[in-house]
């Protein structure tokens, strides 16, 4: 499975990424997740700015034509922003899952990011899939 992985962030076994950027931690889904889902048609974020999220807890769903996937908070903290653009443009997730299609921004313990999978560990995980 050849899939794009970025070196500038960390990953989870649920195929999400987390990246510290300007005092926030941005959360999104990986290219592998996007490839598995196919054409994304709906992004539901169940949290709003100010909400507390717990690590490992669901905060929304991404749906494609065929199926859906839960979004889990890789890191606990407080939601600072939700990417509202995805409400009307879910296809952005197909186009730019590591950039414009981040899902939520969290204010949390940036050190906790280091506990997530490194790019090479995530690559190893993907090589063991299927």
């Amino acid at each position, binding site marked *: 499975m050849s899939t794009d992985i970025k070196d500038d962030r960390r990953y989870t076994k649920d195929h999400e990424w987390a990246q510290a950027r300007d005092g926030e931690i941005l959360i999104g889904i990986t290219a592998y997740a996007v490839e598995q889902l*196919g*054409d994304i*048609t*709906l992004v*539901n974020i169940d949290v709003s700015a100010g909400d507390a999220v717990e690590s490992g807890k669901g905060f929304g769903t991404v*749906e494609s*034509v*065929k199926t*859906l996937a839960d979004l889990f908070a890789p890191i606990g903290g407080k939601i600072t922003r939700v990417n509202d653009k995805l409400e009307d443009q879910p296809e952005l997730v197909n186009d730019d899952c590591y950039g414009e299609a981040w899902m939520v921004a969290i204010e949390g313990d940036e050190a906790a990011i280091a506990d997530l999978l490194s790019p090479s560990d995530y690559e190893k995980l993907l090589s063991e899939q299927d």
Partner: protein
Amino acid sequence: MADETLAETPLHAEHVALGGRMVPFAGYEMPVQYTGVKQEHEAVRTAAGLFDVSHMGEMELSGAEAGRVIDGLITNNAAKLVDGQAAYTCACNEKGTILDDLIIYRLAADRWLVVCNASNRDKMVPHFRAAAEDAGVTFEDASDRTALIALQGPKALSIAAESGDDGTALADLGPFRLAETTLFGVQVTAARTGYTGEDGVEIFCGNDGAVTLWNALLKAGEPYGLLPAGLAARDTLRLEARLSLYGNDIDETTNPIEAGLGWTVKLGKATPFLGQEALRAIKAEGVSRKLVGFEMIGRGIARQGYTILDGDDEVGVCTSGSPGPTVGKNIGLGYVPVAMAEIGTRFTVDCRGRKVEAEVVETPFYKRA
């Protein structure tokens, strides 16, 4: 990758070479998509798509009584078919609920083909075999030596015509008519049927001709915009056309009347059939629920198994649901009480804890021009 217990169609290697994502389906490893479900769906609506549906079950019955044997097991009227004609039908049990939905083909008065769902093959083969043997009719489960390729879309017949005269002749067939002919040098039985809501043909051939035919059709179709299409597009296409999917919309807990398939039940036909008395009673008493088509009003996609609510009351269940790429809305099918089956009725669908409003609409959701 592959689960060793999964069967493969003769086109398996072609799917892999085309980049198809292979998934388990009804005991086979089948392509769920190649380039993307939306693109494949769109190709079928505007140009054409090519589907491998070789996993379907093919049963051949021959002998003077073959038609009557089939007629005794199905709700539709096989006796009305002429040579070269096919019909969609249900096969019910004695309770009048649906064992399978089938297409039956009269090749000749004494030569019939019955196509069943792959998922029901283990149930339907012994069912038909037993009835055939009782009547001295020759029965063969031809599934493992028969490939089935569906060529669907507004350009489907033009693409078939690229094979020459025999292909051109398919355009003269009426709906649900079939021809035993040659396409691109391969002996085929081609029928003007499909599962997409578009014009097209479904083409049976022996396993040994499948790769030749598949590749010839892909090549002939390329200038027309033909794409290979997977199970995912097949599902969105059939849902927009409101064609039932066995295991979702119909099964042994549903009867044809409530499923909107009452038109396939011919209570007055000459041959008595399995489930006839139960269906007569169901029709006389009326049904308590109906399968309706609905559109999501709120933000949400209904999926199979989601609960349908009237206020806080659970009143029904969604049997199929997805975005409809051509209709541009999230659509679904579900069973609701008859009182809620009227067009325009609103209810909510429990989308995993989120109550999303939906409205009963006319079906098919999509009808070709």
